[in-house]
């Protein structure tokens, strides 16, 4: 008797789950100060933000490459290979924290990181501001938007605002979520169902399909032991909190535009979506997914590619 009651409860709960999709579409528009966004873009694309004027933000977050550099590890100044895979800048404004280990609470806070990282831009604020202040165009533009002129806070704000403007609405899946059932094919729908059934949805949910919680990489099967060669970057959130609990714990990445942001994971180890799905299924879900189902999940994932300024990303 009790068993049946429980089943009923569980079924009703599942019903509840089914009634409301765990993924929500990206808003079609955002209200951002266009002048500040434009200034932010200039800064985002300005190599003077790096020590030797070789690297700009855009160097590793190329909009033509899905907001990434499509490398396992980014290349910083002096051709130094970085420690970690560059996450996409697209939709980063919807993430609850920034960086793989979530060490920055906001995009503004995040700006500080790459500029100062010796393997990335290797610079510091004084250097950056001195360079920018020599540029009359910047002086003028900052003065027009910020009474205090060129200041750390204002640079951060402008860049962050530009990054927030890099959102990708109107993915085919979003169109489906908005009620256009023809926006995705039946196979893609099957893929979505499998995505939910296998439990991917447990972490990859919300507007950004991820990006709103931390999770251990290797819940059911230890990923790092199998991969070997553990680096500092693999420790994840542990490097921020120092708590054993946070070892190998990362911010769950967004699956938005996942089709064009290979290679995957913080270490850039998965070159294809199929590989990534395999790794996730085994280490996070403790399962192996049959080939044809994996295929369906992958084609579902490809419906998550959105548009930037009205153009579908490639």
């Amino acid at each position, binding site marked *: 008797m009790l068993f049946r009651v*429980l089943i009923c409860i569980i079924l009703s709960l599942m019903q509840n789950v089914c009634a409301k999709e765990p993924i929500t579409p990206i808003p079609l528009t955002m209200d951002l100060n266009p002048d500040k966004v434009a200034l932010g873009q200039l800064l985002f694309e300005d190599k003077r933000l790096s020590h030797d004027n070789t690297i700009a933000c855009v160097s590793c977050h190329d909009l033509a490459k899905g907001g990434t550099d499509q490398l396992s590890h980014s290349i910083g100044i002096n051709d130094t290979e970085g420690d970690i895979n560059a996450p996409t800048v697209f939709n980063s404004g919807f993430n609850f924290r920034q960086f793989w280990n979530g060490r920055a609470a906001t995009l503004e806070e995040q700006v500080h990181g790459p500029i100062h990282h010796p393997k990335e831009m290797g610079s510091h604020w004084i250097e950056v501001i001195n360079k920018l202040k020599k540029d009359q165009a910047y002086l003028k533009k900052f003065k027009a938007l910020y009474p205090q002129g060129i200041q750390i806070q204002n640079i951060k704000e402008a860049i962050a605002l530009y990054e927030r403007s890099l959102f990708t609405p109107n993915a085919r899946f979003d169109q489906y979520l908005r009620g256009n059932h023809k926006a995705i094919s039946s196979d893609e729908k099957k893929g979505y169902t499998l995505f939910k059934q296998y439990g991917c949805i447990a972490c990859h949910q919300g507007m950004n399909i991820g990006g709103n919680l931390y999770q251990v990489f290797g819940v059911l099967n230890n990923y790092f032991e199998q991969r070997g060669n553990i680096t500092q970057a693999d420790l994840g959130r542990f490097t921020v909190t120092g708590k054993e609990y946070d070892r190998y714990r990362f911010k769950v990445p967004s699956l938005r535009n996942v089709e064009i942001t290979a290679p995957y994971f913080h270490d850039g180890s998965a070159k294809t979506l199929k590989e990534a799905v395999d790794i996730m299924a085994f280490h996070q879900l*403790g399962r192996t997914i049959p080939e044809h189902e994996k295929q369906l999940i992958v084609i579902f994932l490809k419906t998550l590619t959105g548009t930037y300024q009205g153009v579908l990303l490639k």
Partner: protein
Amino acid sequence: MNKIFTNIVTVLSVILLIFLYQKTQLVDTEQHNQVISTLGTLKQLEAVWINQVLHSRLALNNNYDAMADTWITLETTHQRWQDFQLKRIYGENIAHAEYQKTAYLAQITKRREYIEQFKSVNAILSNSVRYFPTAVSELMRLEDTKLLVGDVNALLSAVLRYSLLPEKETQIQKLIDNLQEKGALSEQDIRSQINIIASHARTILKYRPYIDAILEQINILSTAQKIDLLTTTYVNLQDARLNESTPYHQMLMVFSGLLLLLILFIAYRLRVSYTALNRANQQLKTANDTLEQRVTERTRILSHTLEQLKDSQMQLVQSEKMASLGQMVAGLVHEINTPLGYVKSNIQLIQTIFSNLKHVLQEYRALIVNIPDHISNGKKLKTQIEEFDELKEDDSTGEELLKDALYGLKQIFELVINLKNFSRLDLSNISKVDLHEGLNSSLLIAKHLFKNKITINKQYGDIPKVKCAPSQINQVFLNLLTNAVQAIENKGSIIITTRVKNDHVLVLIQDNGKGIPKKVLPKIFDPFFTTKDIGEGTGMGLSISYKILQEHGGNIEVTSQEGKGTTFTVSLPTGI
């Protein structure tokens, strides 16, 4: 000195006002309310947050966006709290509040860590719980698993129960071990599926208590009480501040009231001053406007005065002349009077003698007839008597001559008497005067002017004596009579009328002469105005007359019609 005092008082007032104002500004109710409201928001947000956690636990929430958003809102709210200048709002004594705040922030940070853990663990647990029945049915679908049905179902029901309610783990552990033991001899695919089931069952076993522990921690770390304490602390701080500032508040009220009164008083004073100033300005303006007019007026008055002065001077000269004339006349009259007296009596005596002589001569004539010529002296006598007869014929003539002489003397007497009157009146200043007497003497003096052409018609009324300077009044009459005579070219008449009108005596001197032209009429009383040839008239007569009457409180008026005549009316008050 007064000014320095005022300045000092003003400065002190301002300083006091600022001091009191600052003291009362200690209490920033608005900011305090915002702090309290911020705390309220925090409490509410946390309640929402925890609600979202529980919803996720029961799979009522199928994503963590809302939870993440709530945290962002919470952080923003924390930032707002941090941005409050609490020392400014509550004073320096906020160490306790700051301590409580730090404790709260530490606690909520900890709580948040647990919530992040919850999110991770909940994802894993819910995934396993959700997958577990599927895993079991997947096993059942495989061949040769009938033997396992009982164990698997026992495990399934135990795990599902366990996922929601606290159960003994050891029993489930046994069930897992049991299943794995039974399946150990099975096919590879059965074993691996059993392993998956076991793995998920262990995951549930591991994470279910874990998530309970996390939820308990989240519960324990409830910050509601801390927020309440903080609210109380802030309210107490605020109350303390209020108590501190109340007397200053009252003082400020009183002081402000006083200042207001002072300002009102000053405003009133200013207004009064302003009005006065305005009026003065107005007057000044008016004065400026009329200045020219007034200058003209004044000039006119001055020139008039100058003329009057000239008149007076002329009059003075004239009256001096008249006075001298009066004295001379008086002396002359006296000198004439004496010989005149005895001439008159001598002539009267001669008249008597002449009458007697006439009588004797008649007697002689009668006698002489009888006297012969031969008588020696008879003829001679006769001749003499005849000569007397001639005289006899001229008897009347002789008498007439004497009569004429007497009449002439009488006339001289009258003239002398009049002259005497004239001069006498001149000497006596003011006395009660019978104007008729004055008129008469004037007429007498002017008589020589009348000749045969003018008849005088006196229509004297019954008038009282008038107090006046007779010499001057006589001069007026003489003047008027002279003018009247001169106005009459051929024959004419002058009518002199006297009467009383109200309290004035009127003397009208009316002629039927040529009249005065209208153009000239207004000027006739002006000094030196004359129509006569040079040397004939001074032009002073009427002006002096006018002046004299003015001084007597009387008046002289003229009406004239050209060709018909002129009437001068002299009026003198009876009262003087």
